């Protein structure tokens, strides 16, 4: 089930891209598997064809899916894809954090220290009995 949320500030095509990647990351869409056509997915989600087309084009450019002329669309056959997608997601979050830090003039050393502190805090929390 794809959910396009209006409280999500990102454009719809990005939301669709992310949810497609999620399906691959959790293993619902296996490497090499056939996926719905652009038109079919647009009808299923209830959004315009052009928006889904854009999501497919971007995912194709990222090497996540491939379109075979006359045969349809498939998840890339790269078996590392799922972990690559998770890795990418983390990289994006980190980049966002570093950007914010740079904007505030936080030094790399200081940033490192703070990340370490948060890491310890988070892993401590997980250890705590429920």
């Amino acid at each position, binding site marked *: 089930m794809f959910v*396009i949320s*209006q409280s999500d*500030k*990102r*454009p*719809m*095509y990005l939301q669709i891209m992310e949810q497609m990647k999620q399906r691959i990351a959790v293993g619902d869409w296996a490497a090499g598997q056939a996926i719905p056509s652009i*038109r*079919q997915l*647009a*009808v299923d989600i*209830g*959004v*315009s*064809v*052009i*928006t889904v087309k*854009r999501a497919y084009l971007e995912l194709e450019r990222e090497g996540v899916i491939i379109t075979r002329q006359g045969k349809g669309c498939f998840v890339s056959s790269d078996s590392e894809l799922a972990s690559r997608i998770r890795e990418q997601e983390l990289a994006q979050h980190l980049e966002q954090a570093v950007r914010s830090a740079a*904007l505030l003039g936080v030094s790399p050393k200081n940033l490192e220290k703070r990340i370490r502190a948060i890491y310890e805090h988070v892993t401590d929390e997980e250890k705590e009995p429920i």
Partner: protein
Amino acid sequence: MTDYAIELNGVCKSYRFFELQSIALRLQRGTIMGLIGPNGAGKSTTIRILMGLVHQDRGEVRVLGCRMPDEQVAAKWDIGFASDDMRLYDSLTVGWHINFMKSIYQSWDDGYAQLLLKRFGLNAEQKIKGLSHGQRVKAALLLVFARRPKLLVLDEPTTGLDPVARHEILRELTSVMAEEGRSVLFSSQNTQDVEQISDQITFIDRGRIIDSMDKEVYLDRWRRLRLEVPDGIALPTLPGVIGIQQTGRLAVAIANAFEPHLPNAYENSGARVHAVENMTLEEIFVANVEHSREEVKA
């Protein structure tokens, strides 16, 4: 056969207090176009002209290859039109209307009509006069949808509907796209609806088309930049930026022709770019109308 389901060129129409000025519009076959604009902008007039209900003073109108208004009889077999003022017979039932349409249109899909009855929560035995506004709208749309016309022209199809009904209508509209070559033109005050289901967006204000293009391209051109402006720095005037609002050290710039280098240009002027945000169609709508009215005043 042309590639366009609808083609308007240099279409003008003058009324005493309103003028439609040289409207040019193209709807590619197989796509959905959303028509947006403030009240009284000319959306309904444009729709009426392309349906042949109002005759233009000047300009060329072609719908499914037929010249309008001259060839409207031929064109209308393949056009499904619905608007607010569509009258159903009060004293007759929904089922009577369904049978009536079935007897006229060869393309009528009775299975689909029955499915829509269920989906829309309508009862075929019920008389029109007993229906709520929302149910009437749904009944009218059912009568149009079940004909499976090549072109759907809908003037404000979701106005006055509850969220569930609105959703149903939008779903049916997008499901039209499952069949290649069918096209939809609809006007709406609900920018969310337009943003969600349109391939093309046409923006009308004061009888003129301000923008008409691919939705993804259109949304992508607009950005909101949140800036921090240190003391003593004046923000430069940059191309593609239609407005800047500044209070204290914080400023918001709206770009309608965003380029990736725009944030750098602000950084180079001494400002800091805190965020570059996408805008919803609703936000674009307001910014666009305000901007175009300022231009008229200037």
